[in-house]
């Protein structure tokens, strides 16, 4: 547990900053909803007539005048992207930062197996992602209560669950990538998250690229689908779970045999 506690201490400030910013933006969006609702007619008309942009963000299938429709789009942008960036950044640096900051020599010359290092760092990563989501869930819920709107419980819970799973998948994939890196990890993490986000936008716009929604975790976070189906897409989740396990397997296979440079 020593490495786990150490990692949680080191990750405390980034967690507070990312969690604070995402929760703040999400709360602002919710507080804006009553004002938006008054202009519902005009807004729906505007958002449904923006061509590819409308399709890219799923605004052709959602009622922007309802809290669940509004939240699905805002949540997708703020929590989806913000949470994905946090998880990817955190995970991509988790293993390689010791080499980058040249602390690997200190850590790995103590009697701890590489597998233990991996396991405790992974636990710290998953705990941080969980803490971020729990805090954001609480703030978003509190904001809805404060604006006096009826809470669309099922859609709200499913959306937060979907984004939580997205972050876990991204975290596991980037954790695997981190085992192979030695130096820069921020660009790799942000790059992977951005690539998967854009992949989902392309899949939304282009019929022939629709299959890409199965490859990107943003595919099972589609607010329109979640609201209309009342459930998460099991097939896409299964593919996501596969990618996550692949990332973890790569980390557990490679890191114990990796040559640690000074």
């Amino acid at each position, binding site marked *: 547990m*020593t*490495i786990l506690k*150490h990692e949680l201490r*080191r990750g405390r400030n980034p967690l507070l900053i990312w969690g604070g910013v995402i929760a703040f933006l999400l709360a602002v969006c919710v507080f804006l909803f009553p004002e938006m609702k008054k202009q519902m007619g005009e807004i729906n008309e505007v958002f449904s007539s923006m061509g590819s942009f409308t399709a890219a963000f799923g605004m052709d299938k959602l009622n922007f005048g309802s809290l669940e429709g509004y939240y699905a789009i805002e949540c997708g942008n703020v929590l989806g992207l913000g949470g994905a960036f946090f998880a990817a950044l955190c995970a991509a640096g988790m293993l390689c930062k010791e080499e980058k*900051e*040249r*602390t*690997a*020599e*200190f*850590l*790995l*010359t*103590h*009697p*701890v*197996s590489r597998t233990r290092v991996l396991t405790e760092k992974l636990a710290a990563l998953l705990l941080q992602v969980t803490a971020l989501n729990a805090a954001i869930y609480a703030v978003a819920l509190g904001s809805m209560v404060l604006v006096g709107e009826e809470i669309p419980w099922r859609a709200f819970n499913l959306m937060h669950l979907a984004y939580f799973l997205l972050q876990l998948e991204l975290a596991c994939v980037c954790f695997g990538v981190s085992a192979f890196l030695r130096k820069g990890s921020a660009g790799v993490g942000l790059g992977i998250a951005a690539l998967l986000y854009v992949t989902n936008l392309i899949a939304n716009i282009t019929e022939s690229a629709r299959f890409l929604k199965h490859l990107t975790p943003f595919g099972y976070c589609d607010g329109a689908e979640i609201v209309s189906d009342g459930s998460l897409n099991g097939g896409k989740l299964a593919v996501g779970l596969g990618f996550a396990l692949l990332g973890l397997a790569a980390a557990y296979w490679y890191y114990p*045999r990796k*040559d*640690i440079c*000074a």
Partner: protein
Amino acid sequence: MDAIKTEKLTKYYGKARGIEDLDLTVEQGEFFGFIGPNGAGKSTTIRTLLGLIAPTGGRAEVLGRAVGKEKEAILREIGYLPAEAVFWSGMKVKEILKLSAELRGRDCAAEARRLCERLELDPNRKVEELSFGNRKKVGIVCALQSEPKLLILDEPTGGLDPLMQRAFFDILRERNRQGTTVFLSSHVLSEVQRNCSRAAVIRAGRIIACDSVEALAQTNAKRVSFRGSAELSDLPGIRDLRTEGESVSFLYTGELNALLGRLAAGKLRDLSLTEPDLEEIFLHYYEKGGEAE
């Protein structure tokens, strides 16, 4: 049981040579010096013994355990001081020491306190505020506080002032007397000469000499220094000739009578014949690849 034993230990980084067919034995309780120029393979050897890198060939044992297979058990008995001690910023010295002890599953608070006092290290300072020398002290306390059976020290005195170097070697000698094996990798030959009973010289990834420090230092070469003039141009056995004005100095391995004849024929105002210091002998090993005189 040997503290360290390697047989044909080899490490290549891609095509680049790290160490090659390295055979080395360090007995338990020894104060052993490991000497070589930059890039000779000292750090590669140490990193292989610590399990940070995997060997390309050969085998190594530390305290009777196979390196690679029993890594945690080996590391439990080793205290390691890297050439450059780097820690996580934002942490205090005492937090680093506690973390190191916890990673070993030990409570080393009392020993850490004693070592901090002897090395004049303030445990309440943040590590990023420390000078290179003080960071080195943190590394020293981390390596020593668990009272390991084997100490592996890579360039340990870099950054330490002479008083601290003395305090540090006092501690090492005490530990050695109590049975701790000390493996000291160093460029500073005088500290090897003062402290080590045996030493190995590594050059281009291979051990080129391994013996007691006295035997390694034994040579028939003499350092000859004089002021004045003498005809030495075709005299065989002269090495490392340095001339500065009227002062002439060189290492001589030739016939002594021939030298004295030449000097007697010249005009000398001053003459000294001394044993060369260890530094000079090892420079010879580094340059020539180790053919002992």
